[in-house]
């Protein structure tokens, strides 16, 4: 199969599979991922080598675009509107999963610290698609639903920050395991990486904002936005800075300096869907089925303690912010699915840590499939318990 035929096949069958999976009330991302596993190298081998080889390129572009959009969460206006409960719960559920998974992997499973930290940081992500689908299906309404939606909407922003910090620390530990001035180097490298990403993102945002004034058509706007986002990603890769952080800072600075920035974000949304489809299918196709057996206990621990960390963190956040009892008791059940951002982070880990990357990536893909399947059931349970599902 040639490359273009392969791409066409992935898009066409991807669309059909998404329509099909909606019949059983699951989100498109699950369909894309499962399709990738089925048509990927371990099973049907329908994905051409050239397309598989472009996985890194496509994930960097998709991650850059996602992080750029997520940056909007940090507009002054949005942060003012978000509310105390959502802020506390979202920060603590993300940190809860991060800390618990890292601790269990390091202390109980005796994994290297950098690896534990990577798993912990990926665990902080939550995928909103499945949760939102259940809310829509049952027309759930109430305080609990509002809080849940608010938390899943901002969660990925915290995950990107947590992952970027953890990645910088893990890279420093990985590269300097025997250095004497170890801690100082780790700290400086992390700080430099984050500061560099901020400077790059801010510079790109100012550039985008300046050139926006000279654009005359929606096409100009799309090309300008795409061009600057790509430049930002490319420079981040070139300077060994975090693509995720620099893109997120680009979005954050832009939304705070340009009143009409929403036009720029909206313009990218017109072309991102086929890229997202490709990203998920390729994530599934890159799954190495032969090492699933070897992830056993790690995968199981990840599955259990990520959820436990999220539930504990969400409950603590709800307690601190004096949220209603239903939020305190059941919100964690709505935070189980993981997908896009977790897979993206796993792909970054895969390319940055070649020795353990495949194991991290395969664990995340396999657990994503499990979470995406059980997530909707748990969300439904939580909405019922919170009495936010309207029964006729």
């Amino acid at each position: 199969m040639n490359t273009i035929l392969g791409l066409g096949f992935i898009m066409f069958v991807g669309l059909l599979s998404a329509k099909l999976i909606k019949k059983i009330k699951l989100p498109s991302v699950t369909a894309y991922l499962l399709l990738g596993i089925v048509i990927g190298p371990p099973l049907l081998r329908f994905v051409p080598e050239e397309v598989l080889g472009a996985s890194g390129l496509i994930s960097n572009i998709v991650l850059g675009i996602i992080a750029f959009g997520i940056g909007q969460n940090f507009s002054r206006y949005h942060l003012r509107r978000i509310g105390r409960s959502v802020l506390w719960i979202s920060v603590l559920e993300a940190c809860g999963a991060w800390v618990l998974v890292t601790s269990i992997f390091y202390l109980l499973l005796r994994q290297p610290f950098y690896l534990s930290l990577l798993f912990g940081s990926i665990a902080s992500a939550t995928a909103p698609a499945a949760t939102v689908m259940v809310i829509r299906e049952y027309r759930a309404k109430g305080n609990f639903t509002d809080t849940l939606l608010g938390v899943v909407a901002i969660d990925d922003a915290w995950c990107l920050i947590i992952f970027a910090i953890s990645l910088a620390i893990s890279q420093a530990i990985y590269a300097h395991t025997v250095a004497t001035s170890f801690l100082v180097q780790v700290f400086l490298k992390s700080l430099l990486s984050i500061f560099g990403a901020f400077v790059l993102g801010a510079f790109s945002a100012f550039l985008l904002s300046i050139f926006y004034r000279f654009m005359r058509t929606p096409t100009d706007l799309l090309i300008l936005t795409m061009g600057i986002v790509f430049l930002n990603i490319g420079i981040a890769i070139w300077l060994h800075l975090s693509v995720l952080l620099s893109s997120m800072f680009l979005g954050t600075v832009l939304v705070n300096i340009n009143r009409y920035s929403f036009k720029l974000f909206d313009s990218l949304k017109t072309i991102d869907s086929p890229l997202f489809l490709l990203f998920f299918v390729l994530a599934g196709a890159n799954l190495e089925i032969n090492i699933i057996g070897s992830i056993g206990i790690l995968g199981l621990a990840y599955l259990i303690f990520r959820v436990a960390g999220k539930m504990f963190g969400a409950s603590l956040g709800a307690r601190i912010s004096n949220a209603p009892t239903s939020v305190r008791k059941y919100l964690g059940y709505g935070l189980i699915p993981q997908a896009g951002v977790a897979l993206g982070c796993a792909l970054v880990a895969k390319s940055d840590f070649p020795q353990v990357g495949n194991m991290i990536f395969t664990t995340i893909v396999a657990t994503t499939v499990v979470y995406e399947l059980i997530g909707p059931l748990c969300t439904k349970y939580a909405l019922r318990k919170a009495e936010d599902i309207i029964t006729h």
Partner: protein
Amino acid sequence: MRVKEIMSKEVISVKRSMKLKELLRIFRNFHIFPLVPVVEENGRLAGIVSFRNLIDALQSYHPNMLKLVPFLDEEEQNIFKIDVSEDIGDLVVVEDIMEYEYMSVLDDSSLEEAYNQMKLCLKEEFPVVDKSGRLIGRIGIFDILQVVFRQKGIIK
């Protein structure tokens, strides 16, 4: 020529607290797709509401909240089959469905600037605000075209 010289000063605007029922009554008077400004008590422009937002009123949650979420499936909603209670006419208010991200033009902008913004955003009408953000009028693409036709001597 400046926007303030040709804008219409009569603007139908609504308050955040207006009920859906009353909003629908206002929309009934329009022949074309309207873009109704939402203003604060002090007259400052706070957002806009259009026919598109009426569809949001039929949903059980606020779509604005999910605008920033990646990988979300668009809702394939059949508005003819939605089961909603009659109460939403009183329960849903403009604030629940209004758009907070909107384009507007300053009264002091040139017609060329206003026209370029309309072209860039594929919109045919903008609310006009003064420097303090207070809504003072509206300008449509036809208002600008009329000026151009007049300048070219096509109409008197």
